[in-house]
């Protein structure tokens, strides 16, 4: 799915070679400041690599239109973004941005259920707690139904039990719909339990890659 060849980003990332398989769960792990977020931002074309090239389905991403790429490879930022408006507005805004058809409330409730957010659709999103905001932002991305999920610590603000439940549902959903999930996580347990493939980053270099 993604192929990285001699990719450098400033002096932050330096990856000789890395491939990320399609239709699999890939976890990116590594200590704080090692470059995990930077890697995801490169894949989503929020930044360009300073050297080397990244390939998406064998096409160099420098030749792919950024917006088209981002609509297929959707990224969830580490700090959840909450836009002004209600829970409903915040769920639908992803579809609006990507110019995809909107969905009805029933579908929205289904998504809220999946991310364990028990709030009315008309609630002001600004009032949600930190963890609830994270769930909402995750729900928005799930609703967009992209080919690839790039999730930057999707469960960092959640308690361990909720984290477990939501990630499990997410993994299940990804498998069932044949999607690709690339997820940064601080939880060894999550990586061990669910990853088909683990990328460990240290000081901007890929230490090792464990697949099954």
């Amino acid at each position, binding site marked *: 799915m993604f192929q990285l060849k001699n990719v450098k980003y400033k002096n932050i990332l330096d990856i000789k070679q890395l491939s990320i398989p399609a239709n699999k769960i890939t976890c990116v792990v590594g200590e704080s400041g090692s470059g995990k*977020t930077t890697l995801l*931002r490169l894949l989503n074309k929020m930044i360009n690599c300073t050297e080397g090239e990244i390939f998406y389905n064998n096409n160099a991403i420098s030749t792919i239109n950024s917006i088209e790429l981002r609509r297929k490879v959707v990224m969830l930022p580490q700090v959840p*973004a909450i836009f002004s408006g209600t829970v409903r507005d915040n769920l639908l805004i992803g579809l609006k*941005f990507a110019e995809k058809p909107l969905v009805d409330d029933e579908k929205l409730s289904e998504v809220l259920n999946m991310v364990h957010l028990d709030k009315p659709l008309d609630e002001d999103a600004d009032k949600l707690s930190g963890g609830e905001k994270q769930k909402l932002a995750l729900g928005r991305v799930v609703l967009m139904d992209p080919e690839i999920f790039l999730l930057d610590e999707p469960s960092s603000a959640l308690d361990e039990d909720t984290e477990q439940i939501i990630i499990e549902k997410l993994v299940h959903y990804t498998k069932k719909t044949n999607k690709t999930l690339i997820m940064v996580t601080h939880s060894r347990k999550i990586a061990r339990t669910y990853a088909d493939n683990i990328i460990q980053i240290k000081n901007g270099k890929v230490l090792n890659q464990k697949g099954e």
Partner: protein
Amino acid sequence: MDKVINLQIWQIAAAYIFIIILLFIVKLRGIPREKEILISSTRMTLQLILTGYILVYLFQNIHPVFTIIVIGIMELFAIYNIFKRVKVKLSQKIKRIITISMVLGTTSSLLYFIVVVINLSPWYDPRYFIPIAGMLIGNSMTGISLGVSRLVDGMTAQKHLIESALMLGATPKMASKEIVNNAFDSAILPTINSMVGMGIVFLPGMMTGQILSGVSPVTAIEYQITIMLGILGSVTLTVILFVQLGYKTFFNEQQQLDIHNWEF
């Protein structure tokens, strides 16, 4: 115009005495502002005297080149003022957009008003051209300054939301829509507010000046209405041009947010 009171030198001197009394009071109260009052009064006096003589010269030597030179200087001064007045740091690209919007927005409104509305002939008659140009350019300058601050502040403060929108596949236009709209609103709000209070809360400066110099209030009002519409048009056009072109300077060709020193 026989009823016009021509001010004598001693009358103007009396006005200065008024300011000197004021200075005295300010000093007595211990407010440290004498210097500013003194400097601004002197500056105003010198500038106006100079302008007066230049205008007299221009009115006697009517020539299109002179008129064009004068509005050129006005534009330059206004643009320089915008750069100075806006507190945030401006990129080279956005400075270029400010210049383009000011020049295009004000000159096209000005031409419309001179040629179509007032039907001035010759079109470069400085007696009309220069004051009208001054009002359109001055007000557009104030409007665009507010717009620039709002846009740059908004883009910097909300870069996280903008980037999050881009990550979801938004175009730069969608991602910055709210900020662009806010910048537009705050830029034209002062003009709209001043129109609402006009004639009731205060008499506009131009009209006051005309009435003082002996023109009938009805004529003065006709001019005031026309000029207000002109100002509104010019401010709106200038600001629309600016925000529509300006937000793009924050993105590169790859639709990435391009603000220096961003952290994530």
